[in-house]
C-alpha cells in the first residue's frame, strides 16, 4: 500500500523536477516574440539569430576559457588534497581539509563580495582572471568529493609494488596511480567545467567588461524581445550539459569497474 503511494510520489516528484526544463525547447521553437501560451507556430529563427550575435560569441569564448582553466586548476588542487587526506596521517588534517571544503557551504554572494573587495582595494582590474579565481575556489570541493572516492577505492598495494620494483614516486604516480584514477580525474574535470560554465553570481560580481555566458544571458533577460533567442541558447546549453554529464557518468562507472568496486551510485 504505502509502496504504491511512494512510487506515485516519486513519479510526480521527477515530473515536477523536469517540468520547467521541458518548457525550454518548446519556446525555443515557438514562432512568437512573446513567451506565452497559446503557441503560434514552429521556427528555427531563434537558433539562427544566435549566429549573428557578436557579443554572444565573445561571452561564450570567455566562458569556455574560464571553465577550462578553472576545471584544470580545481582538479589539480583536488588531486593533491584528496591524495593527502586519503593516504596519509598528519597533524591538522581535519582543519585543513575542512577549510578547503568551506566554499561548498558558503553563500556564493559572500565569496563574490569578498573577492570583489580585495580586487577593488588592491586596485586590480576585474577580468576573466578574477572570475577564474572565484570559480576554482568553488569547484575544488566538488572535485575533492569525486577524487576522494577514487583514492579510497585505489588498492595501495599497486603503488607499493611499483615503488618496491624501483620506480620513483613521481613515475609511480604517472604510470600506476594516474591511469587507475583517470576516469575519476576526467569526471572531476567535466563536473568542474559544468559548474564554472553555469555559475552566475560570482561571475556577475567579478566580471569587468568581458561577460561570461550566464552574465550575458542575464543582461538579455531585461529585453523582452531577446528572450526567445535566450530560450534557444538555453536549449543548446541544456544539450551541452546533458552530454557532459552523461560522459562524466560513463567515466565514473568505468572508474568504479576499473578499481574493482561495486557501483554505489554517484560521487556522493
Amino acid at each position: 500500500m504505502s509502496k504504491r503511494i511512494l512510487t506515485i510520489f516519486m513519479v510526480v516528484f521527477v515530473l515536477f523536477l523536469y517540468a520547467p526544463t521541458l518548457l525550454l525547447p518548446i519556446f525555443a521553437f515557438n514562432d512568437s516574440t512573446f513567451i506565452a501560451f497559446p503557441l503560434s507556430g514552429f521556427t528555427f529563427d531563434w537558433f539562427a539569430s544566435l549566429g549573428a550575435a557578436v557579443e554572444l560569441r565573445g561571452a561564450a569564448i570567455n566562458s569556455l576559457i574560464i571553465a577550462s582553466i578553472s576545471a584544470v586548476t580545481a582538479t589539480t588542487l583536488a588531486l593533491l588534497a584528496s591524495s593527502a587526506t586519503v593516504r596519509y596521517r598528519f597533524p591538522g588534517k581535519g582543519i585543513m581539509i575542512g577549510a578547503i571544503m568551506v566554499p561548498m557551504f558558503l553563500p556564493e554572494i559572500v565569496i563574490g563580495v569578498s573577492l570583489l573587495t580585495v580586487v577593488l582595494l588592491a586596485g586590480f582590474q576585474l577580468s576573466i582572471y578574477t572570475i577564474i579565481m572565484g570559480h576554482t575556489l568553488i569547484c575544488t570541493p566538488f572535485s575533492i568529493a569525486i577524487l576522494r572516492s577514487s583514492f579510497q577505492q585505489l588498492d595501495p598495494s599497486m603503488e607499493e609494488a611499483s615503488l618496491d620494483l624501483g620506480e620513483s614516486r613521481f613515475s609511480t604516480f604517472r604510470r600506476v596511480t594516474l591511469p587507475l584514477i583517470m576516469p575519476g580525474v576526467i569526471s572531476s574535470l567535466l563536473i568542474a567545467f559544468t559548474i564554472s560554465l553555469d555559475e552566475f553570481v560570482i561571475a556577475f560580481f567579478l566580471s569587468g567588461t568581458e561577460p561570461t555566458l550566464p552574465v550575458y544571458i542575464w543582461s538579455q533577460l531585461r529585453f523582452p524581445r531577446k528572450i526567445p533567442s535566450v530560450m534557444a541558447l538555453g536549449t543548446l546549453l541544456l544539450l551541452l550539459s546533458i552530454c557532459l554529464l552523461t560522459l562524466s557518468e560513463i567515466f565514473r562507472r568505468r572508474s568504479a569497474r576499473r578499481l574493482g568496486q561495486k557501483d554505489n551510485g554517484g560521487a556522493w
Partner: protein
Amino acid sequence: MSLRTRLDQDARRGLSQISLPFIFVMLLLAVPLVILLAMSFWTQDFLTLDRTPTLNNFIEAWSEPIYRTLMLRSLKISIIVTFVTVGLAYPAAYYMSFIAPNNRKAFLVFLITIPFWTSYLMRIFLWKVILGYNGVINASLMGIGLIDKPLDFILYNQLAVVLTLSHAWLPFAVLPIFVVMEKVNRTYLEAAQDLGDTPFWQFIRITLPLSMPGVVAATLIVFVPTIGDYVTPKLVGGPDGLMIANLIELQFKKANNAPLGAALALSAMFLVTAVAAIFVWLNRRYLKAEGAA
C-alpha cells in the same frame, strides 16, 4: 625502520601535498574574508574610503527598518524553503533507497542530478514563464475554463520565491539523505520484524534516527546558500520578495557603499551560521536522547 620515523615521513608527505590547496584557500577565501571584515568597520563617502574603525555600518544594518526587514525575510524564506525541500526530498530518497530495485538506483541518482546541472539562471527564469500573467498556469486554467482572466497574484511575491528556490534545491537535498539511507544496516529492520515490530514502528525506531545525519546534511546544504540567493528574488520576487543579497549587490555597485554592503554580507553569514549551529546542536541532543548517536 621504526614506526615513529615512518609516521613522520607519512606526515611530511601528506602535509606537502595538502599545502598547495590549503594555501590557495587561505589566499582566496580566508584573507578576502578578513579584508571584508575590515572593510565593514570603515566608511565610504563616494569613492574615498575612511579607515577609522567604526561600528556604524553594523548598527545601520541591524537598526534601519528596510535592512532588518530584508534580513529577517531572507532568513524566513530560507527556513521555509529548507523545510519544504527536505520534506519532499526525504520520501523521494526513501523510495530510491528502500523501494527501488538495486539495478535502478544508479539511474535514479542520475535522473535526479540532471536538472540540477542545467543552467541555474534559465531554470529560475522558466518559473517566471510558468507563473507569469500569460504563463503556463494561467493559460491552462483559462483553457479549461476555470478562470476568465489571468490571475496576477501568483508571480512577484514571496510564495513564488519559495516555490522557485525549493525546486532549484531539491536534487541537492535528495542526494545526502539517499547516501546515508544506503548505509542503514538492513539486518536491523529484519531483526525488528522478526521480533514483531510493525513497519511503522520499524521506520520510527530504526530508519528515521539512522537517516538523521543525512537530513542534517541536506538541511545545511539547502539552508546556508539559500539565504544569500540573488537571482530568484530578483526575477520572481517583485518588490515584496526582495532578499538581502539584492541589497548587498546594490550597496557594492550602485550605492557605492561597499562598507555597508560588507556589514550586511557578514551579518547574513553570521545569522545563517548561528541558526545552522543551533540546528546541529539540537539534533545532536535529539539523537543522544534516542540513543542512536
